[in-house]
C-alpha cells in the first residue's frame, strides 16, 4: 500500500500518472450515465444514500433540539414586566416614538427611522434575491432548449384560446380594489398598521392575480423588464439618497430641515412616508418578479 502510494506520487510528479486514470474514470461514469443523479459527482451520490449519514443526521438534529429546548427553560418567562428585554430601549421607542419620529405607527417609526440602516439592508436583500433569480432563470441559450421553446409557445396559444372568462371578469372587478388598498396601506404606513412591506405585498399579489388571469403578455403592455429594472433600482436609490442625507446630518449633528408635521396627517413624520413608498415599490416588483420568472423565465 505504502509503496503504491509512493509510486503513484512519483508517477504523478513525472506526469505519467493520469494517463491511465482519466480512462478509468470515464469507464466508470458510463455505467451511471442513465441515472438521474449522474450529474452530481460520485462523492455526493454516495453520501445521499448511505444509511450512516441518515443516522448521524438524526442524532445531530435531536441533539440540537434537546440543547435548544434545554436553553428555553432557562430563559426569562415571556411577558414578565421585569424581563431583561423590557428596558430603556423599548421604553423610549414606545414613549417618545411619536414625538421623535412623528409616526403614529410605532413599528414604522422603529424600522424606518430608529433602525433605518437595517431596513435598507433588508430591502437590498429583496433586490439581491430577485437579481439572483434573474441571473438563474432569465431565458438564455444555456437554460432553455428548442423543445422547451416550442412547448412554451403551445402553452401560450392554449392560454389565449381557452382563457377563463369567470376569472377574468372577477379579476377586472377586484383588481382596482386590490391596488387601491395596497396604495392605501403603503401611504398610511406611518399612521396605521401596515407600511411598505405589507402594502407592497398586496400590490404584488394584485399583479400576480392579473398576470395569471390575463396572461403575462397582457401585463407586459404596462410592465416590462425595463420598467421593472427602473422601478426597483430607482426606488432603492431614492431610499439610499434620503437615508444617506439623514445619516450624514444625524451623525454630524446637523439639522435635517425636514419637518415632522402633525402626527396623524398623511404628510407627516418626515422621511418615513418616502421610505415606505420606496420599500413598497421594491416589494411589489420583487413579488411579481419572482412569480413571472419562475413561471416564464422572463418579465
Amino acid at each position, binding site marked *: 500500500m505504502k509503496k503504491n502510494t509512493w509510486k503513484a506520487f512519483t508517477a504523478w510528479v513525472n506526469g505519467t500518472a493520469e494517463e491511465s486514470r482519466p480512462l478509468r474514470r470515464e469507464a466508470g461514469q458510463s455505467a451511471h450515465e442513465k441515472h438521474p443523479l449522474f450529474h452530481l459527482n460520485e462523492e455526493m451520490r454516495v453520501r445521499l444514500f448511505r444509511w450512516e449519514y441518515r443516522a448521524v443526521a438524526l442524532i445531530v438534529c435531536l441533539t440540537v433540539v434537546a440543547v435548544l429546548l434545554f436553553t428555553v427553560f432557562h430563559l426569562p418567562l415571556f411577558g414578565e414586566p421585569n424581563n431583561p428585554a423590557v428596558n430603556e430601549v423599548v421604553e423610549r421607542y414606545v414613549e417618545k416614538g411619536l414625538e421623535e419620529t412623528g409616526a403614529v405607527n410605532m413599528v414604522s417609526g422603529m424600522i424606518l427611522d430608529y433602525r433605518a440602516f*437595517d431596513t435598507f439592508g*433588508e430591502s437590498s436583500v429583496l433586490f439581491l434575491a430577485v437579481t439572483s433569480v434573474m441571473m438563474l432563470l432569465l431565458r438564455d441559450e444555456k437554460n432553455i432548449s428548442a423543445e422547451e421553446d416550442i412547448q412554451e409557445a403551445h402553452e401560450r396559444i392554449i392560454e389565449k384560446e381557452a382563457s377563463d372568462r369567470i376569472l377574468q371578469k372577477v379579476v377586472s372587478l377586484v383588481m382596482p380594489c386590490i391596488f387601491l388598498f395596497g396604495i392605501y396601506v403603503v401611504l398610511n404606513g406611518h399612521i396605521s398598521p401596515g407600511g411598505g412591506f405589507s402594502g407592497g405585498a398586496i400590490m404584488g399579489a394584485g399583479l400576480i392575480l392579473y398576470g395569471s388571469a390575463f396572461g403575462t403578455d397582457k401585463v407586459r403592455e404596462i410592465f416590462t423588464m425595463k420598467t421593472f429594472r427602473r422601478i426597483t433600482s430607482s426606488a432603492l436609490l431614492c431610499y439610499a439618497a434620503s437615508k444617506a442625507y439623514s445619516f450624514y446630518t444625524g451623525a454630524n449633528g446637523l439639522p435635517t430641515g425636514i419637518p415632522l408635521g402633525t402626527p396623524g396627517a398623511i404628510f407627516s413624520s418626515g422621511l418615513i412616508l418616502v421610505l415606505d413608498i420606496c420599500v413598497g415599490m421594491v416589494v411589489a416588483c420583487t413579488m411579481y418578479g419572482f412569480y413571472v420568472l419562475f413561471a416564464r423565465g422572463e418579465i
Partner: protein
Amino acid sequence: MQPIYYNIPFVCIFLCMVGGITMPLQKNGQTALRTTVAVCLAVALLCGGLAGILYAREESFVYQMGHFPAPWGNELYVGPLEAMLTAVFALVMAMSILGGRQTFMEDVLPPKQRFYFTMMCMILASLLALSFTNDIFTGYVFIEISTLAACAIVMARDTEKTIAATIRYLVISLLGSGLFLIGLALLYCVTGHLLMPQLLTRVQLLSLAGGYHVPLTVVCGLLAIGMGIKSAMFPFYAWLPQAHGGATTSSSAVLSGLVLKGYIIFLIRIFYRVFSISVVRSLSIMDILFVFGIAGMLLGSVMAMREEHIKRMLAYSSIAQIGYIFMGIGLGTDAGIVAAFFQILSHAVTKPLLFLSAGRLSEIRHHEKSLYRLRGTARSDRLAGVGFTLGGLSMIGIPLLTGFTAKFFFAEAAVVGGLRMWAAILALAVSSVLNALYYIPAIIAIWSRPAEEYEELRTPNRGFAVAAVVLMAGVVLLGTAAGPVLRVIRMGLSML
C-alpha cells in the same frame, strides 16, 4: 462637529450599495465591470487613508447612523485594524475582478454580466458592514446579503455542476445563518440589547452575577458554529470545494480570499466586543475552535493532496488555511488573535493570486483544469507561472513570503506552554510539510515540459498582468515588511 474623516466608513458602505443597485442599469457587462473596479479602488483608497489617519492618531471612533444615539439607533465602530482590513479587501476584490475578466466574459452570458457586478458590489458592502458594524442585528442583515450574493456568483457560470454546488452552498450557508439568528434571539432575550457596547456591559453584569449561564453558553456556541459553518471551519467544509472550485475565476478568488473572512472578522468582533475575551475563555468555546482548527489544517491539506483538479486543490487548501485562523483564535491569547488577523490578510492576498494564476494557466489551455493537462503552461505564460509559484511557496512557508510570516506569528503565539503549545507547533510543522507535498508537485508540473503538444491560446491578458503584479507585490510586502501591519493589528485589537 466631528472630523470629516469619520464619515468615510459610512460613505464607503453607501458607495458600494448604490453601486450595486445601479449595476442592472449599466449599458453592458464591460461598463459594469469598469464601474465596479472603480468603486472597489475608491473604497480601497478611502479606507487605506482612514487606516493611516487612525493609526497616526491612535484613535478609534463610533459613528452614529442617524439621529438617535447608541441603544436606540444603528452605529458603526471603526478602528485602524478594521480600516486596514477593508482597504486590503477592496483592493483584492478589484484585482480579482480584473484578473479573471477574460474567463468571466467567456463563462457568463453577456445579458447576465451586469447582474454579476451587483453581487460583487454587495459582497464588498457586506464585508465593509461586517467589519464596521457596532450592532449585531445589522451584522445579521449583511450576513444575509453576503450569503445571497456569494451563492449568486457561484451560480453565475450556469453549468450543471455549479448549480448543484450552489444549491448545496445555499442550504448549508442558510443553516449557518439560521443558527446565528437563533443565537441572536436568545441573546436579545437575556440582555435586551442589540448594540455591542450595551451588550458588553449586560453580559459582564450577568457573568459576574452568574445569571443566565446556560443561555449565554449556548448563544456563544451558536454564534461560533453559525459563523464557522459559513466560513468553512473544519467539520462544516463539505460545501466549499465544489462551490469554490467550480465557479468562474473571479468568483473563486473573491469567495476564498474575502467572503470567508468577513464572517470570521465579525465573530472575533463579537467575541471581543459582546462577550469580552475573558468570558469567552471561561466558556470553553476556545478549546472547540482550537481542535477544529487543527483538524482543518491537517485534513484540508490531506484532501488537497488527493485532488487533481487544480481549482479544487486550491479550494481544499483554503480549508487548511481557514483552519490556521481558527487555531489562532482557539489559542485564546491576544497573540493568537493577532496571528489570526495576520493570516486573514495573508490568505486574502495569496489565495486570489493562486486562483487567478491557475485560472490564467487553464485559460491558455482552453479551460483544462486537471493538473496533468496543465503541464508546461507556465512556459507559455511566465507571469502566471511565477504568480502560481510565488503563491504556492508562500503557502508552504518559504521565508520572505507572507505565508512564512503568518506561520512564524502562529508559532510565536503558540509558545504558551502545556499541551496546546505542542499540539499547535506540531500541527504547524506537519501542515507545512503537507502543503509542500501538493504545492511543489503542482509547481513542478506547470513548469515541466508537457508529454504531448497542445494547441494554446496566445493572446495577452493585461488585466491579469496588473492583478498578478499587484498581488505578488502584496505577498512579498506582507512577508518582508510585516512590522507596520502587525503594529496596526495590535493597536486595533487593544481598542476592540
